C-alpha cells in the first residue's frame, strides 16, 4: 500500500524576558527509508538565522542554528509531503541496538516478560503482537504520570505512562529477547502531538510496531528520528542565556494527501 501524507508541525516559544545566545537542534525532517520517501519539505525558523543540516550517527536529520541576538520569541514550522510504502527496511542493525541504553535498562520483570513471549523467528508478526499485548496489560495510558526522564523500569514499576514509556518498555523487552530494537519517533495521522513507537529487527528486517496503539506502525506514520531511546531522538533541544520562563505551544497536523499534491510540487 502506498499512502501520501502531508504534515505540518509548528512550535512557538514565548519567553517572559529577552534571551540571547540561543542554540537549537531540531529533528523534524522526515527520514529517507525504503518505507518512507520524502517528496518535499521545508523548515522555517523565526527569528531567521542560518540553519545547518546534518545526519547523526543514528541516521536522523539534525537541523541546528544559533540566535546570538536578544529575542523574546522563537518559532519554527516544518512542513512537507511523505510517501509511505510497505517496502521492507533492512539496514543492518548497529550492535548498540542489542544492548541496554540509559533509559532502557532491563529489570527482572522485563526478563520474565521476554521469556514468556516464545520464539520470535517462527511468526514475527505474532510475536510483536504478544509483545505489545504484554506491555499494554501492564501499562495504562496516563499523561502526566511520567516525565521525559522516566526509565523503562520506572514506568513498568509505576504501571502508567505515555507513548514514550510504552516504547521504552517494548524496546527493552525486545532486546532481552535477543532482538535488536530501536526507539522511533515522529508523527501519526490523527495525533496532535509527536508520537513514539518501536522497530524490532526480526528475520532480516525492521518491523515497526506501535505498542501504545497495539498495531503495526505503518502507512499513517512519519518517522523523524530513531535511536536507542528517547534521548537519541530529541525532536527539539535548546539552550539560551537569560533568566526567563518559557511558554511553549506545539501543533502537529498530519493528513492524507492526494496525488495532485505530489505532482504540483515536482
Amino acid at each position, binding site marked *: 500500500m502506498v499512502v501520501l501524507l502531508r504534515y505540518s508541525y509548528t512550535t512557538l516559544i514565548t519567553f517572559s524576558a529577552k534571551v540571547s545566545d540561543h542554540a537549537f*537542534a531540531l529533528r523534524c525532517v522526515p527520514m529517507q527509508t525504503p518505507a518512507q520517501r520524502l517528496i518535499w519539505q521545508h523548515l522555517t525558523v523565526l527569528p531567521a538565522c*542560518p540553519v545547518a543540516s546534518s545526519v547523526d550517527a543514528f541516521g536522523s536529520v539534525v537541523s541546528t542554528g544559533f540566535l546570538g541576538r536578544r529575542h523574546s520569541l522563537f518559532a519554527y514550522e516544518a512542513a512537507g509531503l511523505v510517501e509511505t510504502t510497505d517496502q521492507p527496511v533492512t539496514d543492518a542493525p548497529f550492535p548498540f541496538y542489542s544492548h541496554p541504553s540509559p533509559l532502557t535498562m532491563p529489570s527482572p520483570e522485563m526478563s520474565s516478560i521476554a521469556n514468556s513471549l516464545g520464539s520470535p523467528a517462527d511468526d514475527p508478526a505474532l510475536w510483536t503482537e504478544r509483545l505489545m499485548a504484554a506491555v499494554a496489560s501492564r501499562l495504562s495510558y496516563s499523561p502526566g504520570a511520567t516525565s521525559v526522564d522516566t526509565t523503562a523500569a520506572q514506568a513498568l514499576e509505576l504501571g502508567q505512562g505515555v507513548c514514550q514509556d510504552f516504547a521504552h518498555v517494548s524496546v527493552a523487552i525486545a532486546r532481552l529477547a535477543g532482538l535488536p530494537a530501536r526507539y522511533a519517533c515522529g508523527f501519526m495521522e490523527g495525533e496532535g502531538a509527536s508520537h513514539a513507537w518501536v522497530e524490532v529487527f526480526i528475520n532480516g528486517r525492521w518491523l515497526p510496531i506501535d505498542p501504545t496503539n497495539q498495531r503495526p506502525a505503518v502507512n499513517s506514520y512519519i518517522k523523524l528520528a530513531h535511536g536507542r531511546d528517547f534521548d537519541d531522538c530529541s525532536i527539539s533541544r535548546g539552550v539560551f542565556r537569560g533568566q526567563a520562563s518559557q511558554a511553549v505551544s506545539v501543533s502537529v497536523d498530519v493528513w492524507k494527501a492526494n496525488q495532485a499534491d505530489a505532482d504540483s510540487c515536482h
Partner: protein
Amino acid sequence: MTDDSIYAKLLLQRDAVNKWMERCGVRFGIYKNGSFKEQIFPFDAIPRVISAADWQTLSRGLAQRVMALNAFLKDVYTKRSIIRDGIVPADFVFSSKGYLPQCEGIIPPADVFSHISGIDLVQADDGTWFVLEDNLRVPSGASYPLIARDLTRKVSPETFADASVLDNRDYASLLRRVLDDVNVSSGLEVVLTPGRYNSAFFEHSYLAEKAGVVLAFPDDIFVEDDLVYYKGLLNKKERVGVIYRRISDEFMDPMTFEKSSLLGIPNVFSAYRKGNVAIVNAFGNGVADDKGIYYFVPKMVKYYLGEEPILRNAPTYLPIFPDDYKYVIDNLPTLVIKDVAEAGGYGVMFGRDMSAERLDQVRAMIKADPRRWIAQEVINFIDLDIMDGDSTVKRKSDFRAFVLSGKNTEVWPSGLTRFTRDPKSFVVNSSQGGGFKDTWVLAK
C-alpha cells in the same frame, strides 16, 4: 642524603624551588566534603631518574601502545573488525560507559582519536615496568614536571650543566605541533577550560600560555551554521579550528549529551561530526581506556600492528571469564580489585585490607556484576626516596608518561611521577593527596 647523586646540588636549593612553585600558583584543586579547596601540589626535589636504556624500551613501547589504541578507536567506531574477529568481546565494547554510539562512523582529522595519552606505569622492585592504566580522555599532569624543570633550572643551573638530562621543556611545542596537525581550515587553536574551579585550572592556563594558544571559557565559544567561533573583542567572530578541551565528553554538548550541562558548547558535536573542527582528545575515547578493555591492549598491539607488545600489563583477571572468575574468588585476599567505571584512584580495594565479612561482600558483588570488576596481582613497586626534612624516606610512586599523536606519535622524554604521603598507601593519585616529582630521562 646521597651527596654524590647527580641531583645533589639541586637538593641544596629545594626550598627555593618550592617558594617559586607557590609564587607561580602551582596548585591542585580537590573537592572534599562538598567544598572546593585548592592546595599546593607538593613538589619533591629528588627526581625520578630513568636510564637511557630503560627509556629506549619505554618510549618504543609507549608509542606502540598508543598507536594500537588509536587504531582500536578508529576500528570500534567504523568497521569493528577486532570484534568480528573475536579478539575483543562485543559486550566489553558496547556495554562500556565510555562507548558513545553518537560517534559511530566519525573519523576525526588525521585519523587521531587520542592526541594526548597519559599512560600510567609502575616499576616493580626487579626493575620491570608495568602499564597500570591508559588515560585517553583528558589526562592531566604534564604541566607539573614542565614547570618544575623550568624552576629547578632557574635555581640550580649547575645541576643541568653537569647531569646529562634530556630537556623536557619542549612539551608545549609538541602539543602545538599536534594542534597544528589536526587543525581544520587553519582556524584559531584554543584550550577550553571549564573554569577556575576545575582541579587542573593551573594546568589549563599554563599550557595555553606555553603553547601560544587561546585559553577559552565555555561562554567564549559558539557554533553557528555548524562552524565553531570564538567571540573575540567587540564580539568579533573568529573561526576555531581545534579545541583542546579539558571538559569530559558528557558535558561538552548539551544538545547531544547531558542536557543539563552548562559547561559545554551547544552543537559543537554537530560541527565535529561534519569535520568542521578538531576536538582534542576526540569524543568517545572512554571505550579504549576502560579498565576492562585494558586487558585487551596487548592483543590490540598484535592485531593492528602485527608486533609483539613491548610493554607489559600488570597481571589482570576478568571475572567475566570463568577461569579468571574462579581464580579471583579463590585468591581475593592477595588481589587488588578495581571498579572499571571509576577513575582517580576511587573504587580500588585491596583484598589484604579486608575483613572476612568484607571479602564475602566483595565476592558477592563480583558474582552479581562480573563485568564491573577487574582484579590484578599486587605489584611490589620500587620505593622512591622522598625528602622528609633533611633526611629521606621511602614511598610508593607511579609514573605517567605522555604520548602525543598528530601526524606522528611522539613520547615526551619526561612525565609525572606521583608519590603517596601515607607510607601504608598503595594508591597513587593526585586526587588522593600526595605529591609529585620531576622525571629525568638521561641522555646516555
